[in-house]
């Protein structure tokens, strides 16, 4: 017995003690009917081969460790960006428990969302009663300013009609007639979480601009000088949106952030739980019709929303999650063009500081090979930054990337000599990535928390940039957009590079001649 009160051992140390090792060895040998160790080893080695990769890439039906989630998750992400808004998900209730847990694990924040809790009877008769009672209960209990309705795959398969159901619920007095209940159908078997984000954003503007589902007059656009900004689905939304606001303020731009969830996912601990905090006001959501232009920071998160906005007479511009110097330049110059505001010296200085930092550290990054996976726009942003650093992106993978996305990535790669040896993988998963990391090894992997399994299996050091990040804290509070955001990404990458160098040079009398204190 090694446990003791003075130095309590938890799972990190407890199970490495001899009595547990012995117990587990015994369990395996006597009761698990294990494969012979040689056999396990043989298969393990085989999975590293090009032959295995070929079989792996020949998969047509099975998905293993995908880097994407389903539409309704993005729906919730979008909805909580509006003031006093509670997302209401029509369908099975377990889904909502999952979205809430998923977001809380990433942001370390409460995530409020309700379900219409449909069960077998609703599967047979439809979920109208669930909608009628559900809206009434949500309205009474949580006193929202708006309820944003989306769906789970169950409600989609049985074909519930949100528009009709919400009208019906209003007639039955669940919520006042004039109360805002925008809606979007978000089937989980189409697209991914970024599609759900897109559908809900579009649904909300459709609601406010186009006569609230036929209940009021359509708004008439009276153009003004402000611009709208849409961030897209983004694990760094807290740090990023605040940075964007700061940049716009510095430039003197009149703007509205559409779907601003930077406060609701970063509330203070001060004795009070705020279910709602900050967010785009409903008035702003409606008024945003009159803006001169709308900028989307992530093209693939707004594939429907942006054309919809354009159709209402606004100029639109989209970016691919800009990271680093050139991408931020392009973004700022576009903002400047659209608003007529000059880019102030303050930002030019920030740019110079980022260039300075890159210059200081370039030698440590230059020529290093990287694999990247994540959402389509994030991959593009990171790939662009790596090219700028003189690093060599080698594998770029987005499970929810389209053929069009792959083409776009290829164009980016073709624009730089550093992109010459890179391959793009749309619709592939992290088990494909595992093969690639064995057959064409790289120096570093950039991805979300799930990448740690790839780090373990292939020995490729993981740099955590993406969504979700469960096993590191508070990264979402720091921006990755703007020059300062680029600085954060640079520092994150460098830290890992230096940690790796130190870990590889710390053996006394063997490798520690390179264990330098100045790098």
């Amino acid at each position, binding site marked *: *017995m090694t*446990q*003791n*009160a003075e130095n*309590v*051992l*938890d*799972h990190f140390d407890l*199970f490495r003690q001899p009595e547990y090792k012995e*117990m587990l060895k015994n369990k395996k040998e*006597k*009761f*698990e*009917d294990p494969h012979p160790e040689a056999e396990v080893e043989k*298969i393990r080695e085989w999975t590293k081969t090009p032959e295995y990769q070929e079989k792996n890439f020949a998969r*047509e*039906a*099975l*998905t*293993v*460790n*995908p880097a*994407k*989630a389903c539409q309704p*998750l993005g729906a919730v992400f979008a909805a909580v960006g509006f003031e006093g808004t509670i997302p*209401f998900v029509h*369908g*099975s*209730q*377990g889904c909502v*428990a*999952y*979205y*809430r847990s998923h977001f*809380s694990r990433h942001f370390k924040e409460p995530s409020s969302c*309700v379900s*219409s*809790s*449909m*069960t077998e009877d*609703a*599967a047979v008769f439809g979920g109208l009663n669930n909608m009628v*009672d*559900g*809206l*009434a209960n949500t309205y009474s*209990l949580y006193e929202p300013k708006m309820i944003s309705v989306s769906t789970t*795959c169950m409600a989609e*398969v049985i074909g519930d009609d949100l528009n009709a159901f919400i009208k019906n619920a209003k007639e039955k007095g669940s919520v006042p007639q004039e109360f805002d209940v925008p809606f979007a159908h978000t089937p*989980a*078997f189409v697209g991914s979480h970024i599609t759900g984000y897109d559908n809900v954003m579009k649904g909300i503007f459709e609601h406010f601009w186009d006569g609230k589902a036929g209940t009021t007059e359509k708004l008439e656009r009276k153009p003004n000088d402000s611009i709208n900004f849409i961030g897209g689905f983004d694990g760094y939304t807290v740090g990023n949106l605040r940075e964007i606001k700061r940049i716009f303020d510095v430039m003197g731009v009149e703007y509205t952030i559409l779907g601003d969830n930077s406060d609701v996912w970063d509330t203070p*601990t*001060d*004795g*009070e*739980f*705020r279910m709602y905090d900050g967010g785009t006001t409903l008035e702003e959501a409606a008024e945003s019709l009159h803006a001169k232009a709308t900028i989307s920071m992530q093209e693939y998160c707004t594939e429907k929303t942006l054309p919809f906005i354009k159709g209402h007479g606004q100029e639109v511009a989209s970016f691919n999650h800009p990271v680093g110097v050139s991408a931020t330049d392009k973004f700022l110059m576009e903002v400047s063009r659209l608003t007529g505001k000059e880019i102030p010296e303050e930002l030019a200085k920030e740019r110079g500081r980022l260039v300075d930092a890159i210059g200081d550290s370039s030698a440590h990054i230059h020529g290093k090979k990287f694999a990247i996976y994540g959402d389509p726009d994030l991959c593009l942003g990171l790939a662009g930054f790596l090219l700028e650093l003189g690093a060599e992106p080698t594998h770029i993978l987005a499970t929810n990337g389209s053929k069009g996305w792959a083409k776009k990535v290829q164009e980016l790669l073709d624009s730089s000599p550093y992109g010459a040896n890179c391959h793009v993988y749309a619709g592939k998963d992290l*088990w494909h990535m*595992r093969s690639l990391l064995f057959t064409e090894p790289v120096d570093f992997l950039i991805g979300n928390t799930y990448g740690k399994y790839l780090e373990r*299996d292939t020995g490729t050091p993981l740099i955590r940039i993406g969504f979700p990040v469960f096993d590191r804290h508070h990264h979402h509070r720091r921006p990755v957009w703007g020059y300062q955001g680029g600085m954060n990404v640079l520092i994150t990458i460098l830290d890992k590079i230096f940690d790796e160098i130190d870990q590889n040079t710390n053996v006394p009398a063997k490798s520690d001649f390179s264990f330098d204190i100045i790098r």
Partner: protein
Amino acid sequence: MSLATAEKLEDIKARNKELVDEVLEAYPAKAKKKRAKHLNQFDEGKPDCGVKSNVKSIPGVMTIRGCAYAGSKGVVWGPIKDMIHISHGPVGCGQYSWAARRNYYIGTTGIDTFVTMQFTSDFQEKDIVFGGDKKLAKIMDEIQELFPLNKGITVQSECPIGLIGDDIEAVSKSKSKEYDGKTIVPVRCEGFRGVSQSLGHHIANDAVRDWVFDKAGDKPAKFESTPYDVAIIGDYNIGGDAWSSRILLEEMGLRVIAQWSGDGSIAELEATPKAKLNVLHCYRSMNYISRHMEEKFGIPWVEYNFFGPSKIAESLRKIASHFDDKIKEGAERVIAKYQALMDDVIAKYRPRLEGKKVMLFVGGLRPRHVIGAYEDLGMEVVGTGYEFGHNDDYQRTTHYVKDGTLIYDDVTGYEFEKFVEKIEPDLVGSGIKEKYVFQKMGVPFRQMHSWDYSGPYHGYDGFAIFARDMDMAINAPVWKLAQTPWKN
């Protein structure tokens, strides 16, 4: 100092009643009537806790519950380490439950064990329209090709499967035949079935009965039976719980032939009918298969509780009572062996925790099971409730709770928040969805599903960690900073 001496029992009861009435005021009439049946307090001498349970959650109220898929894939089947569990349907369910429950296991992931992997059929629109059976068959072929050491496959149905009329049983049978009788288990755990995770547990248990036991038939076990063979049922090895439990059973002279399902394997499932006794930790999620084994194989089962020294000692003796003197002496020896450690832990932590009030809201066993462990540390549970308990859970709860304990079944976000606001416990123990809500309020919190990434909490070794963690939560200096000094 116990709460009962601080406040008179009748005052507590009056306050609880008032509190329940107040909370119910926020609901529309229909919902109020329904929720009233789920909120009460325990009256000494009553056979249950005076609440209805295991009925549908009402829509739109922020229930904390999950679904049948979560109960089957997430809880019961997912930890079986050498089988591959396909999340069959759209991508989300498998993604959100991927490696989230901390079911520890030993094995080479991706080669001979697969617990922390996400296998999904990633349904697209065409699969909904044309059905997913062909795709499922192909997935099984691809699994055989790429993961040759898998010992079996389960199909964990997501919502659409039952709605589009797929025949996963037929696919499973034909593929099993094609692969020389490989165990392939279709599980009808669509999320819309039932009212919570609970039906998923039951469906998963029945799937073991129909597709593992019936198939294994009289296949001889790989080992010689002994009179001391037991199986651990209903321990999911969260943070290593089953390991810190197993070690005690082995130390008292028993032989653990299977673990269900944390760090479990198909061989262990198949061998379980050879057990002389099934020891059941999570009654809620695995009483079904225990009852089946009792009926079919004549294996008795006994519930036990490995939280805190009082309950552990009681449980060791209860388990030993099913065996001869050798084991009874073994139980006493184990209790004595750990006595010094327990004394040390209590001497160190009890003074720091004495009199602290706890409110719990957890899954299917912990709302009652952990009460003894808190009491061993001088703490008091003043409110508890189940996400997906049934009436028999609330009956069992009466043996644990004190007179006047607030009881809330399938509590809603609104109710829980209000209860905590009014009762002002020193600690709340619930899940990830609740954690940050209460921490914002400045209330110390421990996740009692995942052990807040710590653990194990089961067994004697686990109790030391439990005590350390509760102290860490309650006495962390940060909570003193929550109030803004110039505002008060």
